C-alpha cells in the first residue's frame, strides 16, 4: 500500500468533538484513523489511513490476511506463464456486490482503466506502468490513446482476469489487493458519478464490509456485508473509524474504552504506556519511510550545494533518539532499510562522521552564497501529526544551529497537506511513503518522473536504470540494477532521507488476531472481539 501521509492533530480549529458514546461490548470495533479521510473514491485514495477503510469495504483479486500475508481474495487461484509476462486470475464462483448483483471479471478490468484514465486524476496509475509495467498502461495514462482495448488487462470470460506485462514483475501480486485494484461497480458510477463513493445510500462495495454511515469530521460506520463470499468467517459485525485528529485526545478516548485500536501513540507517553499496559502497546517495523523533499522549481534549491548542505546538517541519530523518540530508525537511504536482501547505496557523505558532514555543509552553504548576513529562509510543509511536527522542529533547529537557516514550519491537516504538494508554495516537503511490499522497487518506481511529476525531477539516467531493472526476472539481479538507480537518485540530493518509521498503535486486549504487518494491512475481517 502506497500511503502518502499520515497526519493528525491541530490544536486549533480542528473541532472533532468526541462523539464516541459507549463503545464497550456492543459488537462494534472502534478504530482511530487520525485526520479525516481524504476521499472515499477507491481509485483515488492515496493516504494510508483511508486505505484501511478501503481494505475493509473492497476486495481485490488477492487479499492481505493476518500479518499482511497474501491470501486468495476475489480470485481463488492464479497462474503465471513461464516467461513471467502473462498472469491469469480465476475468480470465485458466485461473487456478488453488496447489493446482490453479480461481480464479474470486467469490473476489475474497468478498475485498472479507470485508475489510468487521466480524467480520474488519480496518483495511483504509476502502479500499473511504473511499479509493474502492464502492456498499454503508460499510453492510456499519458493520454496517447483512450482505447481501453489496448490495455493488457482483459476479461476473456466473467470469471477470468488476464494481465499481460511488458516486463516480468515478481511483486505483481502485492499490487492486486483492494488498495491498488478495487473493482468498479459500473451502474452506480454511471448513475451518480464519483459522488456515489462517498454516499452510503449509493455506494456498492464487494469487501467484507459495506459503508453504512459517513459523517464528515466524525466517523465512518461499516457494517458486515452479507453478500461477501466469506461472510461466515467475518466475526465483527460493525466497524467504526473515528477521526482522531489529536493524538493525546485519542489516547484519552482509548483509555476511556471508546476506542479499541488507536491510530498512533503520543511519543512522549510510549515509555509510560509500555510499563503500564505492555500487552496493548504495538510497535512493529513497517515499510514507511520518511524523507524531506526539496522543491526543485525554486532557484535556491536548484543548487545542489544547498540541498546537500541541508541534508547533511540533519543529525539523524539525535533527531530520532533524543527528540522524536518514536522508535524510528535513522536512515541515510531512500529505498533501503525495509528489505534485508536489498543491498542499496547510502546518501553521499554517509561515510563521513556527523561533525565532518556539518563542517562541510557550512562550506557548501557559503559556496552557494548564503551566510550570516544573507541567511537562507525557507518553509517546511508538514502534517500536524505529533511525530511529524517533532521532526520538523528538530530539523529546523539543526538547520538554524549548523547553517543559520531560518525555517518557517507550516503544519496542516492531512488533506490540505496532500493538496499542498501540487502547489509551488512549499520549499521543503515533509514527505513519506509506505511501501506496498517490503522491497526497494515499491519506492523507486514512485520516484520516476513519469510516476510522480510533482517532484519536478527530470533524470533520463534514472529512467534508463529503472528500465534495465525492469527487465530482470530474478530478484537478486533486479536488486543490483535497482541499487544503481537509487544511487542516481541519492547522488542528486533531491531529497534528504530521514528515517524508517515503525507502526505504532494501542490495541485493546478485547481485540484478537492483531498480527504486525510490515505493509500496514490490518483488515477488520480477520480480527475478533471478545
Amino acid at each position, binding site marked *: 500500500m502506497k500511503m502518502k501521509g499520515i497526519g493528525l492533530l*491541530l*490544536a*486549533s*480549529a480542528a473541532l472533532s468533538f468526541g462523539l464516541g458514546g459507549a463503545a464497550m461490548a456492543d459488537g462494534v470495533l472502534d478504530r482511530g484513523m487520525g485526520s479525516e479521510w481524504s476521499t472515499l473514491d477507491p481509485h483515488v485514495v492515496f493516504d494510508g489511513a483511508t486505505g484501511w477503510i478501503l481494505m475493509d469495504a473492497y476486495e481485490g483479486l488477492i487479499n492481505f490476511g493476518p500479518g499482511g500475508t497474501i491470501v486468495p481474495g476475489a480470485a481463488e487461484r492464479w497462474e503465471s506463464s513461464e516467461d513471467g509476462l502473462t498472469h491469469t486470475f480465476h475468480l470465485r464462483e458466485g461473487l456478488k456486490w453488496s447489493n446482490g448483483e453479480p461481480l464479474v471479471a470486467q469490473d476489475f478490468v474497468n478498475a485498472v482503466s479507470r485508475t489510468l484514465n487521466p480524467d480520474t486524476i488519480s496518483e495511483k496509475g504509476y502502479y500499473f506502468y511504473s511499479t509493474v509495467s502492464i502492456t498499454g498502461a503508460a499510453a492510456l495514462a499519458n493520454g496517447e490513446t483512450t482505447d481501453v482495448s489496448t490495455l493488457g488487462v482483459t476479461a476473456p470470460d466473467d470469471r477470468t482476469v488476464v494481465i499481460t506485462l511488458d516486463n516480468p514483475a515478481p511483486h505483481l501480486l502485492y499490487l492486486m489487493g483492494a488498495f491498488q485494484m478495487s473493482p468498479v461497480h459500473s451502474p452506480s458510477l454511471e448513475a451518480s458519478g464519483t459522488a456515489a463513493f462517498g454516499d452510503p445510500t449509493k455506494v456498492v462495495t464487494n469487501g467484507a464490509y459495506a459503508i453504512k454511515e459517513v459523517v464528515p469530521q466524525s466517523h465512518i460506520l461499516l457494517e458486515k456485508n452479507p453478500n461477501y463470499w466469506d461472510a461466515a468467517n467475518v466475526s465483527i459485525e460493525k466497524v467504526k473509524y473515528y477521526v482522531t485528529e489529536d493524538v*493525546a485526545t485519542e489516547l484519552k478516548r482509548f483509555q476511556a474504552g471508546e476506542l479499541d485500536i488507536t491510530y498512533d501513540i*503520543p511519543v*512522549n*507517553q510510549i515509555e*509510560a504506556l509500555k510499563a503500564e499496559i505492555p500487552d496493548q502497546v504495538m510497535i512493529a517495523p513497517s515499510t514507511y519511510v520518511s524523507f524531506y523533499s526539496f522543491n526543485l522549481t525554486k532557484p535556491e534549491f536548484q543548487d545542489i550545494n544547498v540541498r546537500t548542505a541541508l541534508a547533511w546538517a540533519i*543529525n539523524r541519530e*539525535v533527531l530520532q533518539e*533524543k*527528540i522524536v523518540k518514536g522508535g524510528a530508525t535513522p536512515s541515510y537511504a531512500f529505498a533501503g532499510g525495509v528489505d534485508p536482501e536489498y543491498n542499496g547505496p547510502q546518501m553521499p557523505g554517509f561515510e563521513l562522521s556527523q561533525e565532518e558532514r556539518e563542517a562541510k555543509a557550512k562550506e557548501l552553504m557559503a559556496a552557494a552564497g548564503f551566510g550570516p548576513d544573507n541567511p537562507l529562509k525557507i518553509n517546511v510543509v508538514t502534517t500536524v501529526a505529533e511525530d511529524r511536527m*517533532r521532526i520538523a*522542529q*528538530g530539523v*529546523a*533547529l*539543526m538547520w*538554524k*544551529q549548523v547553517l543559520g537557516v531560518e525555517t518557517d*514550519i507550516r503544519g496542516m491537516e492531512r488533506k490540505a497537506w496532500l493538496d499542498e504538494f501540487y502547489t509551488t508554495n512549499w520549499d521543503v516537503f515533509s514527505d513519506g511513503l509506505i511501501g506496498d511490499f517490503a522491497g526497494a522497487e515499491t519506492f523507486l518506481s514512485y520516484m520516476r518522473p513519469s510516476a510522480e511529476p510533482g517532484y519536478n525531477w527530470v533524470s533520463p539516467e534514472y529512467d534508463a536504470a529503472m528500465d534495465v531493472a525492469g527487465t530482470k526476472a530474478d530478484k537478486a539481479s533486479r536488486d543490483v540494477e535497482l541499487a544503481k538507480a537509487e544511487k542516481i537518485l541519492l547522488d542528486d540530493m533531491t531529497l534528504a532521507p530521514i528515517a524508517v518509521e515503525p507502526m505504532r498503535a494501542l490495541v485493546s486486549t478485547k481485540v484478537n488476531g492483531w498480527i504486525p504487518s510490515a505493509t500496514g494491512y490490518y483488515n477488520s475481517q480477520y480480527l475478533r472481539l471478545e
Partner: protein
Amino acid sequence: MPSDISPPFAAPTAEPASTLRLQFRRFRKNRLAMASVYLLTLIVLMCFFGPMFFPFTGEDADFDNIGAPVNLFSIHPFGTDDYGRDLFIRVLEGGQVSLTIGFLGALVAGGIGVLYGAAAGYVGGRLDGFMMRLVEVLYGFPYVILVILLSLLFGGGTVSLFAAIVFTLWLTPAVIVRAQAQSLAQREFIQAARAGGMTGGRIVLQHIVPNCVSVVIVYGSLLVPEVILSESFLSFLGIGVKEPQASWGNLIQVGTSAMSTDLRLLLLPGGLLATVLFCLNFIADGLRDAFDPNDR
C-alpha cells in the same frame, strides 16, 4: 495650676496636595497593590534583561542536554525542553512577547476607544447613535471566530494576533468613555469653551479626554491582563504566536501535552502567567480604590 496647653493652631505641616497626588498617596498605602507593583517590575525586568546574561537564546538548541531536569546550578537552571532549548530563557522570551503585546495592545486599544468614545459622547445626536450602533454590531461578532478570520486576513503571526486583539478590545473603553463624555459635554466649562470659539476636535482633546483620565487609567489597568490573557488563550489554541517563537500561551500548550510526564514544562510558564495576571489585577484594584474612594 500648671497645665499643658497645646498651641491653639498646629502649624500646617503638609503643603496642599493636588488630587492626583492624593490619589497616589492613597494608592501607596495599599500594601497588596504596592507589592504587586514591585513584583511585576521585577518580572518585567527579568523578562527583558534576563536573557542577556545567558550565552544562548531560546531558539538555540543544546542537543547534548535534551529534556534536562531542573538543576539550579547548571547552565540550564530550569532544564531544557524536548528540543534542548533552555526552558527558563524560553519562558522569559515568551514573557517579552506576552507583556509587549499586553501593554502595547492595551495602550492602542485604549487609545482608539477613548478617542472614539469621547468624540461620540461630545458630538451626540445622530452621529453618536451611528457610532454606538457600530460598536454594538462589532460586539455582536463571536470573538474567537473574528480572531480566526482576522488572522486569516493578515496571514497569521504576531502582527495579525495583535491586530485581532486590538480590534476586539477597543470597544469597552469606547462605551465607558462615551458615557463620561456625554455628561461632560453638558457642563458649563465645555459650554464656555464652545462659546470661546474652540473647535470640537480641540475640546475633545483638551477638555473631554483629560477629564476622563481617571476612568481610563482604572479601566486601562484592567485591560492589560485581559489582553495578555487573550494572547495566551489564542496562542494556546494555536492561532496566535507560532513556534519557534515562544509566548506564554504556546509554552503552556506544549506543557499541557507533556503534563503527565513532566510537569515542569507547564508549571514555569503557567506560574509566571498567573503571577503576572494576579499582580495586574491587584494593581488595577488598588488604582480603582485610589481614584474613586466612593466606589469601595
